[in-house]
């Protein structure tokens, strides 16, 4: 079953073409990695999928589980099962993580016609997912990402993913800013939350090291706004050794 189908996607940022005919198909149960040089369009792809204002789709289509993603607002995409792991999670002073996540989870549930989680049910779920990422619950009582280290922000992203339980996650450089231990914890978190037959993941990364923990089924090279090469996990190793230029040429 196809989870994400991207066909001939074109997108611009401030009128500058960034994605130039990107096509990609991801099946349920699969983990794909996208690697590529700086400026290739990796983050643009994640923002276009998330529906960030300012990222203009000029052609092509994206379907999530058969549903046209591009016609949905960002919050509707979340309710449809998309999760976007931010490269730079945003700090929001004064808004507590717990409150924000409970409202988010319940807003998604409402959009899907499900019953809201009670305070107790939510806290239980949050505790479980925080534990999975070895994150102290006290941190989730603090304002969203405020005063968090780079690594804590990325772990908090994974806690959010665990709580929101998406069908499909785009993780934009979730490995950047992580030390060796945190990288392992985050890698194991991704596996335990998303490595399931009815879910799929698109990992955007610069480095091979996250892929030691989260084994991709496919590795793609994104360059110049399109996928220029696709292979198995060995492609990531090849890139690490020889660099993008040698592999892509």
């Amino acid at each position, binding site marked *: 079953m196809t989870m994400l189908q991207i066909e001939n996607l074109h997108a611009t940022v401030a009128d500058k073409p960034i994605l130039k005919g990107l096509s990609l198909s991801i099946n349920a149960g699969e983990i794909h990695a996208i690697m590529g040089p700086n400026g290739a369009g990796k983050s643009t792809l994640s923002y276009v999928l*998330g*529906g*960030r*204002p300012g990222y203009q789709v000029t052609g092509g289509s994206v379907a999530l589980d058969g549903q046209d993603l591009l016609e949905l*607002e*960002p*919050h509707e*995409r*979340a*309710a449809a099962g998309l999760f*976007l792991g*931010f490269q730079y*999670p*945003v*700090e*929001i*002073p*004064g*808004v507590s993580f717990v*409150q*924000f*996540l409970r*409202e*988010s*989870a319940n*807003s*998604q549930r409402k*959009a899907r016609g499900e019953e809201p989680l009670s305070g107790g049910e939510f806290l239980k779920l949050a505790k479980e997912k925080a534990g999975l990422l070895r994150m102290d619950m006290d941190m989730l009582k603090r*304002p*969203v990402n405020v005063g968090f280290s780079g690594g804590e922000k990325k772990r908090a992203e994974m806690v*959010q993913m665990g709580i*929101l339980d998406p069908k499909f996650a785009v993780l934009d450089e979730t490995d950047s800013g992580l030390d060796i231990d945190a990288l392992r914890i985050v890698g194991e978190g991704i596996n335990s939350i998303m490595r399931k037959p009815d879910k799929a993941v698109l990992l955007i990364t610069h480095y091979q090291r996250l892929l030691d923990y989260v084994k991709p089924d496919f590795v793609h090279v994104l360059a110049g706004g399109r996928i220029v090469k696709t292979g198995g996990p060995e492609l990531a190793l090849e890139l690490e050794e020889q660099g993008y230029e040698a592999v892509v040429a």
Partner: protein
Amino acid sequence: MSNPAILPTRKSEEFRYSDIDALAKLWPLPEPESVIVPAGGHFSRAIVQDAGGVTQLAISLGKGATAAVHVLNFGGDYGRIELDVTLHEGADFTLGGAQLGAGSQTLEIVSTVRHVEPNASSRQLVRSVLAGQATGTCLGKVAVARGADGTDAEQSVRAMLLDRTATANAKPELEIFADDVKCAHGCAVGELDAQGLFYLQSRGLTPPEAKRLMLHAFIAEAFTGADDVDRLEQLALNQLEAML
């Protein structure tokens, strides 16, 4: 406080941004309420302005007395809160105010805080959220008299514009005749952080839900320390929901 005999015009600094037509209907204003807090005493008041009009309150704080005034200014076409506070030696005054305006409302908080004797402190914090064609004004004057050394006065005024058509006026003013004083003031007018909004929406919050969360956080500081903080917050939240 204004001279009760003559309707002010916009040439008068304290009414520069006022809705004079609305004011004319209320004129002449009744005598301002006057509160005298004796030495060592405490006074607290929450002013909820939910139907329009002018509220005037004069407070005189005796030696070592304290006062906390919290204001939620959101009702009617024209809502004005005027405070005139006099601090004697070692007195302490706190103002926390929030104004929530939409449509063509004009909302104002105008304060004059007089440090007439040494070692008194005052903290004033006002947060305004303005939508539509609303105008929100905060004029805060701190006057430090000769000899009022050791004065510690702080003013923080911030406004959030939800639409480009809304207007915020912020004017902190200092008049200092003493040497040894600490007076801080800051004001800022801005819009909701677009990155933050997208982040919240990407987790499933609708645009109004995301805005409400951020705006709630923005105004929450204004009610810190209020006796009935829960009631003020709930009233403010209801109004924010209606605005979004």
